[in-house]
């Protein structure tokens, strides 16, 4: 009797396993947002919808904290244990694609029509990753402060010029009302430096690397335009316009809201919090134009398919499924990011026409420029960060930029010019 019931149970169990295995193939997915319950809910919602919408694939999710995510992917790749679907920070994607961790997406034609350029991850003319959102950086200011000091409100068409901007910083400094006129977020010493500050360099006319060949930084990072940028950068600190590299994270987070800083160069992810604190008074202004147009950085986290995935068609199908406007809008409403299409933006609270953060969508559309699309970017970003810190701390501008240039060139040479492996 007993053995019979065990047999029955085993049979039932194995049939259940069997049917699910026959019906849906398992796909694994890794995501960098562990710890954020909002993100988990959103992602799990998409996965549940996808698993329920068809009978071929079944996606399961594993989350990692952002700080450990890249290391986990690298370790898994070395061990040959990558999942089918990964998410990847936009500028890092070429490095992983080059290293053979990722394969191009298999999206149907027109799937990416209308997407913000920053949300599409292209390398070697192939789309490897795509984002449901982009991020943008703006100059936070208070309407009341600008009025008080007679400062013009810049527009996308007519941003502040470099000279005008320096004058504004001097005016704010001279007023004595603020600890510092501007908060650049020097406390945040990670990808923030190249993401937020390289656009200033681009606006001066320099770059991290020569983008025609991606084989040298000579002239781009230590040419006349770059040196001009470096001298301006150093003047921010010698004139006490900006708190230096030893700024603590707490002042960076609350300084603008508390009124210690008059202006703040920060991303859209703190916009909702700032709006709640300051209401209508807060303005999100475009980047200043230092001669080559106002620029901000583009590309945030994106989804891609690992090279070792046995079912790239299923993985791509999931990513394409996730690109529906309603999911883009849900992510935007949930964590405040910029939806990747105008259609999705219209569905959101903040980015719809007339929404409180509408200006960010325009910034992303008009000013965003990608960080150098090359596997060497990962290294270039580190050297750029070091050069910026050193110049801020008083290093000789030309020597610091020369040093970064040499280090980048040595890295490129060490990696056979980052040529694609055959």
């Amino acid at each position: 009797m007993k053995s019979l019931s065990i047999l029955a149970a085993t049979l039932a169990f194995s049939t259940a396993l069997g049917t699910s295995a026959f019906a849906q193939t398992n796909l694994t997915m890794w995501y960098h947002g562990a710890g954020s319950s909002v993100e988990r809910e959103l992602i799990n919602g998409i996965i549940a919808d996808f698993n329920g919408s068809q009978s071929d694939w079944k996606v399961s999710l594993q989350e990692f904290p952002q700080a450990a995510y890249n290391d986990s992917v690298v370790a898994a790749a070395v061990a040959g244990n990558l999942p089918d679907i990964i998410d990847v920070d936009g500028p890092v994607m070429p490095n992983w694609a080059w290293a053979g961790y990722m394969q191009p997406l298999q999206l149907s034609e027109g799937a990416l029509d209308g997407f913000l350029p920053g949300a599409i991850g292209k390398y070697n003319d192939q789309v490897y990753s795509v984002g449901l959102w982009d991020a943008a950086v703006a100059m936070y200011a208070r309407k009341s402060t600008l009025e008080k000091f007679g400062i013009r409100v810049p527009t996308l068409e007519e941003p502040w010029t470099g000279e005008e901007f320096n004058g504004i910083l001097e005016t704010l400094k001279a007023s004595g009302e603020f600890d510092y006129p501007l908060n650049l977020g020097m406390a945040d010493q990670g990808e923030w430096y190249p993401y937020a500050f390289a656009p200033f360099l681009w606006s001066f006319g320099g770059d991290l690397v020569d983008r025609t060949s991606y084989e040298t930084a000579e002239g781009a990072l230590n040419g006349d335009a770059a040196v001009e940028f470096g001298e301006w950068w150093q003047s921010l600190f010698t004139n006490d316009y900006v708190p230096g590299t030893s700024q603590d994270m707490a002042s960076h987070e609350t300084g603008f809201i508390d009124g210690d800083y008059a202006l703040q160069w920060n991303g859209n992810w703190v916009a909702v919090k700032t709006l709640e604190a300051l209401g209508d008074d807060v303005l999100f202004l475009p980047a200043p134009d230092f001669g080559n147009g106002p620029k901000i950085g583009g590309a945030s986290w994106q989804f891609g398919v690992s090279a070792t995935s046995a079912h790239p068609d299923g993985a791509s199908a999931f990513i394409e499924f996730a690109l529906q406007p309603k999911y883009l809008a849900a992510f935007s409403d949930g964590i405040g990011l910029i939806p990747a299409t105008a259609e999705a933006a219209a569905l959101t609270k903040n980015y719809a026409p007339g929404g409180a953060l509408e200006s960010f969508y325009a910034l992303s559309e008009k000013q965003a420029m990608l960080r150098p699309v090359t596997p060497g970017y990962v290294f270039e970003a580190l050297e750029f960060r070091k050069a910026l810190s050193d110049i801020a701390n008083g290093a000789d501008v030309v020597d610091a930029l020369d040093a970064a240039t040499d280090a980048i060139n040595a890295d490129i040479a060490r990696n056979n010019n980052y040529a694609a492996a055959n």
Partner: protein
Amino acid sequence: MRPNQTKSLQSNTLAGWLMSGPALLLITLFLIVPFLLAFWFSFTNQRLISPNPTQFVGTSNFEQLLGVGTLVLEPEKGEDGSLIVSDKGELSYPRVRDFTRNNPDFQHLNGMREWFGWDWGNTKVLVLARDLVFMKALTNTLFFVAVVAPLQSLIALLLALMINQKLRGINVFRTVYFMPVVVSIVVVSLLWRFIYDGRSGLLNNLLQFLSFGHFKPVDWLGNPDTAMWAIIVMSIWQAVGFHMVIWLAGLQNIPLTLYEAADIEGASSWQKFRFVTWPGLRNTAVLILVVITMQAFALFSQIDVMTNGGPLDSTQTLVFQAVQRGYEQQNIAGGSAISVLLFLMVLTISLVQRYLTRER
């Protein structure tokens, strides 16, 4: 009976190997193999992430790290051959980068950077380094060891002498001094970052209070002149309790009868320390010096949490650079080469210490 027993244990080799097997396996896998790999990698161009095959590159990683050159700069002269003197009465010199960047006459200096220099009459003698960050990491590490090793052992000894008294409640002090050792170094570093904060840190506030407001706040970690000292003070504070306990163990091993004899002879307390305590601590002293030196060479967590090697490379260290290069810059070969150099340095210094403190 006894010798036989030992013999039977020694002859029963299979059981012996079986019992030490797990330990030997783990030690081989996690200590010996990585150690040998680091040696091998330092002679290749091994990268963390790369589709390209690893190649043997000989000693070029070491040449890159250790390359130095000298450059003598003549002051600039006007058309008539006289020296150009600025308003401040200073001579002007050509820029170093004119020699180190694409100058066919100075090929051997290509890519080098100014490390240090001195004036020689009107000319300037400069020492250039191919890898300036490494050189700074090297000198910073040596400086850190040179300050921390003697200072920390001395303070630990003083603390040990103080708490080696039979007083009521002395265990409270022992515990208090030992407490920082138990706390994770990462937590300690985070806390000290707040203490050292340039605007509203505890240290600045305290000094201002003690000086009745005359003290101007210093950005301890943000200033190249103070950053390394700030790290040194904090490191000693954190680790001194551990070595205090080792000293204490040494102190308690000295037989009390020796002190009694010294008392009968009428020795002063200095004489007791000099002729009873210190000779009794000899082996402890050797141990502590070697251990502190090795630990000081491994300076990493404080740097990683507090300064990231900055400002202006004033707190770069060898281990921090090895990790930076190997992992962040994806250059395993470069990181391995630094590790190998560090190993050779620590080995040499330990051997010298062993020789100097040998039993005579």
